[in-house]
């Protein structure tokens, strides 16, 4: 079983770059993206970019496994952004895509209303129901995109558990690096910087949770 190189998905990035207002510019930096989302998300994107960057490579291929009745197991490598079905949506006209988004936003908005009675969301819902310009829609779609993304990401408690555990493991590894190759070795410094970045992210998240 040879190692297969991790191949970044560049094809979808190329298409993303051609439409800078496309939400995919932001979400493709994370592990998953919603190709159907549109609109400027610059402020939301900054946050997700920061989160994604400290973890590592932003576009990682997925591994799909086929082991049906095959005792050897076969691995296939595929990239979700190259899924042809999802790209067929790009052929739809923009207005019809927008309508899809509107209906999704309505359903999302009503769900959120029930859950936290957020006045902003109800405002979103009210605004969506009336005929509005795309500019108005784009003001409120950051919230929609955020929740859509949340549905596809790993749950935050799980991410928290993973990061805490990784921090413990890497802190011990750092001691081994220092004793083995010295404090000044570039690998030791790289590990140290990585651990600091991970700690900063964790503290930031904890502070947000407290507030």
């Amino acid at each position, binding site marked *: *079983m040879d*190692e297969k190189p991790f191949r970044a998905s560049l094809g979808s990035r190329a298409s993303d770059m051609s439409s800078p207002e496309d939400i995919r510019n932001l979400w493709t930096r994370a592990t998953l993206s919603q190709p159907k989302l549109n609109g400027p998300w610059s402020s939301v994107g900054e946050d997700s970019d920061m989160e994604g960057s400290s973890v590592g*490579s932003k576009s990682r291929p997925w*591994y799909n496994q086929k082991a049906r009745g095959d005792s050897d197991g076969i691995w296939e490598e595929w990239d979700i952004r190259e899924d042809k079905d999802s790209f067929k949506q790009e052929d739809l006209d923009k207005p019809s895509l927008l309508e899809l988004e509107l209906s999704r936003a309505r359903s999302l908005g009503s769900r959120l209303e029930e859950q936290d009675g957020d006045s902003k969301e109800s405002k979103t819902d009210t605004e969506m129901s009336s005929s509005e310009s795309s500019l108005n829609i784009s003001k409120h779609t950051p919230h929609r995109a955020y929740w859509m993304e949340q549905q596809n990401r790993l749950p935050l408690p*799980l991410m928290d558990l*993973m990061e805490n*555990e*990784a921090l413990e493991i890497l802190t011990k590894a750092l001691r081994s690096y220092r004793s083995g190759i010295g404090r000044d070795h570039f690998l030791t410094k790289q590990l140290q910087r990585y651990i600091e970045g991970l700690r900063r992210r964790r503290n930031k998240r904890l502070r947000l949770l407290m507030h």
Partner: protein
Amino acid sequence: MKAMMKLKQGSFLWYLYLDKLYCLLSVRNVKALLEYFHLLDVHRNNTLNDVLFYHFLHHVTSWNRTQIMIVFNMLDWNAMGEIGFDQFYMLVCILLAQQNHLEEQFIFRHSRPVFELLDLDGALRIGAENFHMYNFLFNIKKEDLRELYHDFDITGDRRLNYKEFKLFTIFTMDKYQERQKAEKEKGKKDLLKKKKLHHVNVTLKQFFGTNVSENRL
């Protein structure tokens, strides 16, 4: 070296589980595992070196340094000094199979990769010393090992080729299934007995207000 391996309670791996039929992770679990792997991939090589690998296994399992390095050398089949995600995934499946007592099923379902792992020198044959070395991974008991070489070494060269090994896995799997069936039957009988007793007690209570002990039944 023969102590049962236990995953650290509350660790990330502890929350994962194998599909009981194919002894593999679900896609959702693989996604989470990939994210975890990338958290540990400090140097952005899509690999873990021996130090990171050691500290990871030391943190989540009860294995000692010797066992961990044996596993590392086994998985580093390209002799790169690093472990990629393929090997990491295989390791996690082995750990989970041990944790959930699915070793026989795992070896049966993945006999080829397991054989290739045990075949250290690439001779397409496994000697008894290979099994001894990796006993802690697959929990093969001494008696089973003796039986294995006695019954399945058809060629008589005191080593197992893949076909002989596959026969062994089929045989072990049959024994495992019979054991499961017997346990299930026993469980059903006990449940039936309890139900009968309960029913009789309810009836007797209604008429006489007394209980019947199990012995009388």
